[in-house]
């Protein structure tokens, strides 16, 4: 039945979701990080009672509020789009998303939205202690909101804790804790949250640098830099550590993604970690023996070490995964397509038997789905059954995009660590304002964490392709059957709206920043 899927529908639907998700992610990481920075400042004000700290809290809180609103506005679109544009996916994964969503709705959303009102309106209305509590609860609520959507996303990367129910044609959860606390989920959460803290820190350091360059609000800028510096250095360290764990996790759960982001076409022992490199223009993603790189500089054995904690470990390349590698016990994609087709055929026969009332065949077919051996041999490859042997390259993600996104993210991550460390060190010695060129670097670095953060999501989501649920459900099977024209229309409506909102947001932010903490 999937032969009839219109590819332009799939592309427009993906485009629309990517547009919304990436636009949402412009605002969310800043909100996540700023909420805690504001809560820290608020705490210091509560302790010291100094007006300067109140001024600071209010200034950053205002920027937080502007961002928060637009983050909320774009967040609801994502929730709706699961249903409107990915309805088959919604049914297929609904049973797994259920509990995380319930937890998120009940614990996080209301926490956030209730206390944000108190945080903004409470200055003269509630007690100082309650007001401070509201700032912290808002920060926790906002960050808790991120937990569950990341759990859901991790499950799409690494579908654990579930079993396929052939009667309902969907995956059903068998262990909530396996889903919520899978290694993939924990690492992803920590990496995403701390990189958001880092983004907010670089933002605060950069904006403060602007005040110092203008020689305005010097005390405010210095103190803000110190708070953001501490926050930034810690966040950068955890981001880098969890990034490293993430590589190990991906090697285990999504070897194809790892091969793509490192541009590793042929597997090897002592596999190098590339520091930098450029792919040839004519390099295809299929491994064909041709040289793919113009140049590459790497550290031999480091990738093997990251994956196996042993420099001699074998890391499979795209070629090993596509064509198989008997020595390493890797099945070829052709073989997996064949086995996947058997699984799909079995499901169809089961349904047909049910329709004609043939209970015996029906029971025999249903039985297979609960036989662990059959599940391992056949059902595990279910998703592959949607593909054709002639189109093996459909099964490889976009190597160039993944390779560059990954390396840009890593290089920028190191830059942020160095920048926040220097800013913190100098600001504590009251010398941060003495070096104009450093302030300029800090100011010009403001957009960079956004680039790094978006690049990270490109790796996570495009590296997962062609799957929506890794190796179980292909993206083409997940889409709602609509006229491509309808999706095209909504795509452009969203583009127009987002552009207007983006301009408004930037203009409002700039004017608020220019007013400074003293302005009204």
């Amino acid at each position: 039945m999937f032969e009839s899927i219109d590819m332009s529908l799939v592309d427009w639907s993906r485009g629309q979701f990517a547009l919304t998700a990436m636009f949402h992610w412009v605002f969310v990481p800043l909100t996540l990080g700023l909420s805690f920075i504001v809560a820290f400042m608020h705490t210091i004000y509560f302790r010291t009672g100094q007006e300067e700290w109140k001024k600071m809290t209010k200034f950053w809180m205002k920027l937080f509020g502007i961002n928060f609103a637009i983050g909320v506005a774009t967040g609801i679109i994502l929730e709706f789009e699961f249903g409107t544009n990915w309805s088959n996916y919604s049914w297929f994964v609904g049973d797994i998303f259920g509990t995380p969503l319930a937890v998120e709705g009940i614990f996080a959303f209301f926490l956030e939205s209730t206390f944000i009102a108190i945080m903004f309106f409470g200055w003269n209305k509630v007690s100082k202690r309650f007001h401070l509590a509201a700032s912290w609860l808002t920060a926790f609520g906002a960050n808790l909101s991120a937990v569950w959507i990341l759990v859901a996303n991790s499950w799409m990367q690494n579908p654990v804790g579930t079993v396929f129910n052939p009667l309902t044609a969907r995956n059903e959860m068998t262990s909530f804790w396996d889903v919520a606390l899978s290694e993939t989920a924990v690492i992803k959460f920590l990496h995403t949250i701390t990189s958001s803290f880092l983004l907010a820190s670089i933002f605060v350091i950069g904006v403060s640098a602007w005040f110092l360059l203008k020689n305005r609000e010097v005390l405010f800028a210095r103190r803000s830099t110190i708070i953001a510096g501490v926050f930034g250095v810690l966040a950068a360290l955890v981001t880098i550590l969890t990034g490293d764990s993430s590589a190990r996790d991906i090697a285990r759960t999504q070897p194809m993604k790892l091969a793509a982001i490192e541009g590793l076409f042929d597997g090897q022992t002592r596999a190098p970690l590339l520091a930098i490199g450029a792919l040839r223009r004519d390099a295809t993603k299929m491994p064909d023996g041709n040289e793919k790189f113009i140049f590459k500089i790497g550290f031999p054995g480091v990738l093997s070490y990251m994956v196996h904690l042993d420099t001699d470990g074998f890391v499979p390349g795209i070629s090993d995964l596509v064509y198989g590698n008997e020595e390493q016990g890797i099945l070829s994609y052709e073989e997996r397509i064949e086995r996947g087709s058997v699984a799909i055929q079995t499901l169809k026969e089961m349904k047909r038997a049910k329709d004609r009332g043939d209970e015996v065949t029906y029971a025999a077919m249903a039985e297979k789905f609960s036989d662990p051996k059959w599940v391992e041999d056949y059902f595990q490859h279910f998703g592959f059954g949607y593909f054709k042997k002639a189109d093996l390259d459909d099964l490889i993600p976009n190597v160039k995009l993944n390779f560059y996104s990954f390396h840009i993210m890593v290089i920028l991550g190191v830059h942020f660590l160095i920048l926040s460390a220097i800013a913190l060190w100098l600001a504590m010695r009251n010398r941060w304002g003495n070096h104009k060129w450093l302030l300029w670097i800090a100011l010009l670095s403001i957009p960079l964490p956004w680039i790094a953060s978006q690049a990270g999501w490109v790796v996570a989501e495009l590296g997962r392709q062609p799957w929506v649920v890794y190796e179980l459900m292909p993206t083409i099977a997940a889409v709602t059957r609509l006229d491509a024209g309808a999706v095209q229309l909504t795509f452009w409506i969203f583009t127009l709206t987002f552009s207007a909102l983006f301009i408004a947001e930037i203009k409002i932010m700039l004017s608020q920043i220019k007013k400074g903490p003293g302005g009204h």
Partner: protein
Amino acid sequence: MFGNLSHLALQQYWYVIVALLGSLLVFLFFVQGGQTFLFSIGKSENERTILVNVLGRKWEFTFTTLVTFGGAFFASFPLFYATSFGGAYWVWIIILFAFVIQAVSYEFRTKASNFLGKKTYETFLFVNGMAGTFLIGVAVATFFSGSQFALDEMNSVTWQTRARGLEAVFSVFNLSLGFTVFFLARVLGLLYFLNNIDNNNIIQRTKKQLLYNVIPFVLFFLLFTVLLMLRDGYAVNPDTGEVFMEPYKYFNNLVQMPLVLVIFLGGVMMVLGGILTSLLRDYSNGIWFAGPGTVLVVFSLFMLAGFNNTAFYPSAYDLQSSLTIQNASSSHYTLVSMSYVSMFVPFIFAYIWFAWRSLNRKKVTEEEMKEDAHY
């Protein structure tokens, strides 16, 4: 504790929770209703600022309840989410759009360099109040009147009309609920103003508007109720799961579930009582009767749609594709684990109540707005 419950009991428990969230949402639409009066009651800049600020303290609740209502529906009845959202594409996209423009408007309206101008954001709020309430009313009406879809063996939806759900506005029945929700939201918005604003001009105009809006609300509500009681409904054979048409199904449901009848009648009386005391006497707490009354009425309607062997999201095109609380739900395991989470709901209500009270102790005046307007 929940693990021992049957799958059906859990499905019913979650349908009740979803229904409660939906009912609460309609009550909280007072924010949307209030937004439609920005121009007719707020004649001056100052008056509009007062209106926006009293509504602005509550818009997040409505928005969050909408998100949670959607989330809870997705979580407990994913097949409904997949079928309705994917199928009635245009209805949901327009509703979605109406809420996207709301979320930014409060925050951006009075900010310097806001690009689109104050008036645009006020218009966004107005549009949200109109389209959001009306279309959700129309969409919920299809719970009784049915839609044009079929499901295949993988439970994938095929919608039969190119209008993708917008065809629902060509039915008098669906329209009657759409307008009922719209005028109800306006009435609740007015009652909320009476409860929270201390400004003579605004209060006088609010009272006048209350009279103008109560009449259409009552008429549309009567029309809807009569049509609902008279129409055939989508019944389910509990033994075979087969769906068939039953004459006067929703009237029968009301009679066969006396508790629902009591809830329905009690709710109607509370809504009317809240409105009438506000109209006839100088009473500003009408919202505290009409609001909970709304919750009760909407809740009873959800019960009529889904309980007593009724298909809550029926297909008029292919009866057997209709969704019931049994064939559209999540697995037993998932419903059990969600149920444990739901035990925290009373705690959430408690802090929401506490927070609400702490901000609404005094009515808002023009003087206060001069020094302490956030939006």
